[in-house]
C-alpha cells in the first residue's frame, strides 16, 4: 500500500517536473511545478515529517508558487514577448545524457550504505513536538538569523520593485 502511494507520488512529481520544463507558457509551468511540490509534500509525509509536509504545502505550493503565479499574471506577458527557444528539446536531450554519469555516481555512492528498513522507528520520531524541541533547543540562533534574512529580503524586494521616478522620467 505504502509502495503504491510512493510510486504514485513519485510519478506525479516527475511528471510535474517534466511538464514544468517543457511547457512554453510560464503559467502552465508554474501549475506543473505545484503538482510536483505537492507530491513532494506527500513524500515528506511518508518519511514521517508531518511538519515539513505542512510547510511544503502551505509555504511552497501555497505561498511561493502563488506569488509566482501572481507575478506572471501581473506582468501580463503576451506570447510574442516570450523568448524564442528553438534548441530547447535538443539541449534537454544532450543535457540528460550528460547527466547520466552524475546520477549513476550519486546512486552508486548511496548504494554503499548498509541496507536497513526505514519502517522501524522510535516512538517520538517525526512528531511536531520533537521537531519543535529540536528547532528551539539546538537551532535557535540559525532560526532567528533566518528571520533577519527574511526581513532583509523583504526590504530588498521593496527597494527593487519600487518605481524609480528619476530614472524612468
Amino acid at each position, binding site marked *: 500500500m505504502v509502495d503504491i502511494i510512493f510510486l504514485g507520488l513519485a510519478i506525479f512529481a516527475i511528471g510535474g517536473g517534466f511538464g514544468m520544463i517543457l511547457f512554453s507558457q510560464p503559467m502552465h509551468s508554474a501549475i506543473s511545478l505545484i503538482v510536483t511540490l505537492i507530491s513532494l509534500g506527500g513524500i515528506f509525509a511518508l518519511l514521517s515529517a508531518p511538519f515539513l509536509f505542512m510547510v511544503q504545502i502551505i509555504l511552497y505550493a501555497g505561498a511561493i508558487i502563488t506569488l509566482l503565479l501572481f507575478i506572471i499574471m501581473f506582468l501580463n506577458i503576451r506570447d510574442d514577448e516570450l523568448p524564442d527557444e528553438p534548441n530547447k528539446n535538443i*539541449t534537454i536531450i544532450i*543535457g540528460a545524457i*550528460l*547527466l547520466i*554519469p*552524475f546520477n*549513476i*555516481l550519486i546512486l*552508486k555512492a548511496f548504494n554503499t550504505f548498509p541496507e536497513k528498513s526505514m519502517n522501524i522507528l522510535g516512538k517520538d520520531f517525526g512528531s511536531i513536538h520533537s521537531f519543535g524541541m529540536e528547532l528551539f533547543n539546538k537551532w535557535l540562533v540559525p532560526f532567528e538569523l533566518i528571520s533577519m534574512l527574511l526581513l532583509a529580503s523583504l526590504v530588498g524586494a521593496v527597494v527593487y520593485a519600487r518605481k524609480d521616478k528619476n530614472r524612468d522620467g
Partner: protein
Amino acid sequence: MDNFLLAWIVLVPLLSSLILGTMYLYSIKVTKIPNIVFSMFALTAPFISFVLGVSFFFRLLENSDVIIYRAYKWLSVDGYDIDMGFMADQLSIFMVLFITFVGGLIHIYASGYMKDDDGYGKFFFYFNLFLASMLLLVLANSPIIMFIGWEGVGVCSYLLISYYYQDSENVKAGNKAFIANRVGDLGFIIAMITMFYYAGSNGFDYINLELGMANVPVEVLSFIGLALLIGAIGKSAQIPLFVWLPDAMAGPTPVSALIHAATMVTAGVYMVARFHFLYDMIPNVGLFIAYIGAFSALFAAIIATKQTDIKKILAYSTMSQLGYMFIAVGLGGYSAGIFHVFTHAFFKALLFMGAGAVIVALHHEQNIFKMGGMRRKTPLVYFTMLIATLAIAGIPPFAGFFSKDEILLTAFGSGEYFIWIIGVITAVLTAYYMFRLLFVVFHGSNYKENRELHSLSKNMTMPLVILAIGSILAGFIGVPLLLGGQNYIGIWLEILNSKALHVEHSIELYLMGLNILAAVIGLLIAYKKFFNYDMSKVPEYTGLIWNKFYIDEIYDRIFVDKLKKLSIFISYKLDINFIDKIVMGISNGFIRSGNVVARLQSANTRMYAFSMLMGISVISTYLIIVMR
C-alpha cells in the same frame, strides 16, 4: 744615495703634471696665469729627472748591480704579491737618460712652439704626465707596473693627438691611435696573464720571472712571446698595426717629436729588449719579429717616397726606422737595437722640430711642395735639418750611420741575408725620401714670393742646435772596433746580448762600404730629381703608393664597417625585434590568452551552466571508472 730616489724620477714629472693640471683649471676658471709660470713648473720636471737619472747612471757605472726600490705592496691576492717596484739596470737607466734629455729639450722647444696657444698649461700637463708614464714604463720592476706606464703613455698620446679637440678629425686620429694601441695591449695583457700563471708563482718581477721561465714549456713561451709581440707592434707602429702613426701627426709638432718619434713608439723595442730572457729561449719568434721589422721598414719607406705632407713623411720614416730596431732586437742584437733607439731619438726629434719650425714659419703650411727656398730664410733650421738628414740617411760620421751599420751587421752576421737585403734597400729609400724632403723644402724655388715669415723664438732654435750636436756625436758611443773606436753601448748593455757575432773584419768593412754606397745612391737620385726643384709644377700623385696601399680603407672595410653593422644589428634589430619580442611576447601571450578566456565569458548564464554540466559529467565519469 738612496734607492727611493728612483721613484722620484717618476714622481717628479707626475707631481709637476698634477700641479700644472690644477693650475690650468684654475687659470681658465678664475684668473689667467701667465705662461712663464707654467713653463717654470713644466721644465723643471725633466731636468730633475735627468739629474737623478745621471746620478743613478754613475752609480751603475761603479757597481753594476741592479738597483731595486719597492715603494709599497701594490696588490696582494691569494699569497701573490705585486709590488709597486722600480728597477734601475743598465737598460732602463740608459732609456731614462735619453728620454729625460730629449724630453727636456722638446719641452723647451714646445714652450716656444705653443706660446700663443690657449691651452698652454694643459699641454704641459699632458706632456709631463706622458713623461711620468714613460719613465714608469722603463723603470718598472714587473710587467704589470710596466703596463701602467704603457697604458699611461697610450692615453697621453691620445690626449695629445686630439689636443685640438674641436676638430673631430683630430679626435678621430686620437681614437685610432688609442684603439690600435689597445689591440696591442690586448696582446700584452694576455701575455702577462699567461706568464703570471706559468711563471709567476715566485713573484712577478723581472728577476723572478726570468727564473720562473726556465721550466715553462716552449709552446707556452712562444705563445707569450707572440702575444707580447702584438703589444710591441701596436705601440711601435709596425705591420699590421701601424695605421695610427701617420694620423697621429694631427697633434702639435712637439708631440710628434717627443711621443711619436723619440720615446713612446720605441717602447715596443724596449719591451722586446726587456724580455730578452724570454726571446732568447724562442729564437723562431725572434726571427718573426725581425721579419715584421724588415717588412715594416721597407713598406714605410716606399710609402714615404711619395708623400707630400712633411710630418707624414717623417711619420713613415719613423715607422721605417722602428722596423730597423725590430730587426735588431728580433735577431738578438739588443744593444744594436737600443743604440738605434738612442741615435734615432736625436735625429728624429731634430727632424720633427725642424719641420715644426718650418711649419710655424710658414703659418702652418704642411705640404712640402708649397714651401721651397727656406734655406736662405731660416739658415739655422736648414743646417740642423741637414745634419739630421745626413744622420738618418746613414752618412758617416753622423749618428745614424753607426747604429744602422750595426743593425745590418747583426742581420748579416745572423745569416739572415734576406732581411739584410731588405735593410739595404730600405737604406737607399731612406736617403732618397729624406733628401727629397730636404731639397724640396730648402733648395726649391719659392712657392709664393714675398711671404712674410713668422719669426722663430730662441726657445725653438736653441734645442735644434743642441740636438744637432747630439746627432753628430751620439754615434760615437758605439763606434765599432774596426774603426778603432770602442762600442761603449755594447759594453754597457752586454747583459742583454746573448749571442756573439763573428763576422770577419774584411766583410764587415765591405758591408760598411755598401751601406755608405746605398745612402749615397739614394742621395744622388734625390739630388737629380729634386735639387733646385721648380715649385710651380707640383707633381700630381696618384696610385697605390700615394694612397698608402689602401690599408686604411681595407681595415675600415674589414673591421670597422663590419663591427658597426654588427652593432646596429644587435642593438636595433636583435635586441628590439627578437629578444625583447620574445620576452614581451610572453607577457603579451598572457594578455592574449586572457582575452581568449574572456571571450568564453559570454555572460550567458546558460552557457556557464552547460559548461558546468560538462565538467560534472567528465568528473563523474572519471570517478565512476576509478571507484569501480
